[in-house]
């Protein structure tokens, strides 16, 4: 599974090579990389936040199924955790606004 992920990642990076063929527009000192990298950062941050939130939701669902009496406390911890993880993804979005 891990090897497949490495192959998939390498293929994606190889497929992205046309980006090097951009005309030299933007800033006079070369192409302006601020925005593309910021977009990439938002993508990575959102993906990893999705993973984190998925893990949080999965474990809280399992906990609520095992112990329905504690569902209120578990639901509170779930909402709190989701909001804090969400804010991490939003930091990357905030970086896009700085990059502009």
């Amino acid at each position, binding site marked *: 599974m891990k090897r497949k992920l490495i192959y998939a990642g390498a293929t994606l990076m190889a497929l992205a090579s046309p980006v090097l063929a951009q005309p030299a527009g933007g800033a006079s000192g070369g192409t302006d990389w601020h925005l593309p990298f910021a977009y990439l950062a938002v993508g990575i941050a959102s993906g990893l936040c999705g993973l984190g939130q998925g893990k949080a939701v999965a474990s809280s669902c399992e906990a609520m199924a095992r112990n329905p009496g504690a569902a209120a406390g578990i639901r509170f911890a779930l909402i709190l955790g989701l*909001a804090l993880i969400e804010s991490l993804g939003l*930091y990357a979005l905030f970086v896009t606004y700085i990059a502009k």
Partner: protein
Amino acid sequence: MQAEAEVWSTALANRFLAGPLDAFWSALGVAHDPAHPWENWLSMEILVVAIIIAFFAFLRSRLSAENPSQLQLAFEGLYTFVAGQVNDAIDHGSKYVPFIGTLFIFILLMNLIGIIPGFESPTQSPSVPAGLAVAVFVYYNYMGFRSHGIGRYLIHFAGPVWWLAPIMLPIEIVSHIARPLSLTIRLFANMFAGEKITMIFLSLTFLIAPAVFMGLHVFVALLQAFIFMLLASIYVGGAVAHEEQ
């Protein structure tokens, strides 16, 4: 970010009250447009404060112990909710409930008022969450100073044992500075992104998809007000905590 169109309250304020605010900004040295010193967030924030004061003055006049009205019961429920959160996070926490409760109601109304057409959430502009976060920062440090004394409170930054101090001190200082930053960005980015996504979907289609995202924005508005209040109470709790030696 392009300049937003002026909300009606900002346009009114710029027409009648441009002079005093122009003088105020110049006195503070803040860069501004002399013809339009009032910005959307400032006029909307003051409007929200006026609404809250008017509403709670009305509520206060209707309070009754023997015969509570439904409004009173609703706000007693709200108070119980906030006081429960604060007392969970802080021991002997009842004296911190006013500040944190005000924070909750203020941020909640500021977040929700953007849903109404013709109004704009003050929290969409980075200045407002920054101000709130600075207020929370000053408040919890001040409460820490009052609770422990200035020297003992600062000694707590050095950690549990003295020989960990060179490592603990930078870590503690950085984490304390990160708190208002993260409070600001969390509130601002959530509100700003929610509004922008609704607008983007509104420009693409109408009726179903923008309504779904607006519903998400309402939920996020409630949640972010709650999270801000919760984090503020946790920070105050951490600052005034007396460990039993």
